[in-house]
């Protein structure tokens, strides 16, 4: 799980709140715990219902990928979630203990030849609903940011 620096357009320690660190077991029930905490904070900051829906969906897809593809349902492995919520934006990092992957190599699930594949829509949903998405060099941590469209400085 890498701690390498993140682009400030996703997380800027000078202007964003400190990241809160949560570590959960690698199963889909335990993976709900960070979501409950993060979504409850977002709702307090006046984000739109559409924004909350999108952040929840992106986080669920990231956690599902971490459990299924990253940690391969290995209960001895962990998922690390770091997040910061402010009225301006929400930052969420999800890291697993897997070998990582190259997001550019994931087939486009909306391409005609892939549209009937039952799997493979998680990454594109994360990209569609979050404002900025990047990965660490190893490809085992997704870094997501959602800007609050209602925020006015």
């Amino acid at each position: 799980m890498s701690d390498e620096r993140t682009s400030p357009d996703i997380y800027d320690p000078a202007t964003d709140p400190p990241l809160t660190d949560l570590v959960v077991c690698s199963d889909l029930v335990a993976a709900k715990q960070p979501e409950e905490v993060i979504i409850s904070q977002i709702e307090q900051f006046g984000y739109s219902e559409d924004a909350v829906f999108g952040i929840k969906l992106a986080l669920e897809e990231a956690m599902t990928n971490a459990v299924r593809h990253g940690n391969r349902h290995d209960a001895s492995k962990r998922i690390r979630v770091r997040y910061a919520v402010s009225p301006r934006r929400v930052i969420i990092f999800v890291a697993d203990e897997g070998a990582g992957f190259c997001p550019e190599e994931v087939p486009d699930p909306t391409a005609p030849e892939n549209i009937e594949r039952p799997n493979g829509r998680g990454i594109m949903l994360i990209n569609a609903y979050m404002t900025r998405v990047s990965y660490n060099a190893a490809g085992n941590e997704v870094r997501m940011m959602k800007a609050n469209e209602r925020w006015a400085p």
Partner: protein
Amino acid sequence: MGTLNPATSDRPLSIQVERMEGVALVTLGGACTMEVSRQIWHSLVGLVTEQVPAVIVDMTDLDFVDSVGLGGLVAAHLKMRHHHGTVALVSPQPPIMNVLEITRLTQLFPIFPTVRAALENVRPNEPPQPTAQRPRASG
């Protein structure tokens, strides 16, 4: 069949299956979140193994669906195609319709405003005639 989503504030996912005019009507409710979304997959694909001619999925009361839940719809569609059957969707809420549009699954599934409209258009072993229901896309 209903299951409580553990340790969350989501409405529990509910899946009700009934037979209506020769087709299977699946009524979904609550939130199809990651810890329960496989249930939709199993329910839909299980129906298809019974060789029903059409499956109508009423999404009116569904608050949330993840990619695994969507995958269950696609898996059912693939199996139904083997015997020229159809999976049709009914009345997804705007956020769910938005997910269907983003993933372009609107190209795969006929979508109807009501169960009645779906029943009238989805006939056993006949291709469906989709209606133009297009709830406001949000996002």
